[in-house]
């Protein structure tokens, strides 16, 4: 599976995490490409701090969303991504341009679940070869 993660929003990152969980249960290989806004969330100083992330949908209902996640014992998006990486072959590629836009030049500028910094050619090739291709 190839997943293009354009969004760096709390709600869409959580959705991506749940989908990665399903892929992990099914032992799928996943190449996840972090594009534009997504790269902001992967910055070390942002990560899964809900105070530093916004909602893409229902921006006024962030507190309600977070309360529900807590009640339902839903993991943070990074915890989902990390668990999926432990269970199956998930490679997380940060788009070089996106990284630069948000002030990240090197892999060390991003959360520890990121595997490398890559160009768009690699994403296109991965998408061409994948059985499942998602854009979030």
């Amino acid at each position, binding site marked *: 599976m190839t997943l293009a993660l354009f969004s760096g929003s709390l709600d869409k990152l959580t959705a991506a995490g*749940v989908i990665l969980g*399903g892929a992990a*249960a099914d032992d799928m290989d996943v190449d996840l490409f972090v594009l534009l806004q997504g790269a902001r969330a992967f910055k070390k100083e942002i990560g899964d701090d809900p105070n530093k992330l916004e909602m893409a949908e229902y921006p006024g209902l962030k507190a309600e969303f977070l309360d529900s996640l807590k009640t*339902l014992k*839903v993991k943070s998006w990074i915890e989902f991504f990390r*668990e999926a990486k432990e*269970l199956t072959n998930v490679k997380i590629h940060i788009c070089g341009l996106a990284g630069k836009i948000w002030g990240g030049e090197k892999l060390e500028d991003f959360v520890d679940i990121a595997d490398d910094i890559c160009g768009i050619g690699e994403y296109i090739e991965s998408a061409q070869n994948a059985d499942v291709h998602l854009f979030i």
Partner: protein
Amino acid sequence: MAIEATKIVDARGTACPGPLLAAKKAIGEIKSGDIMEVLSSDEATKRDVPKWAAKKGHEYLGTIEESGYFKIYMKKN
């Protein structure tokens, strides 16, 4: 006949995909032919776990509904 589970996975209180991932982790810890019992209070899991088990080649044995949770049984391939 009662089913004797080798491994019981208590995933009650977690939401999707929690029970599915708990089942996935636990099935790696038992031997072929062993029976695993997954406890879940998540409605979606009742459909998800049997489908996952069948896809992975394990034998789904059935589900028992208790008060507020399900007991899902499978035999590892």
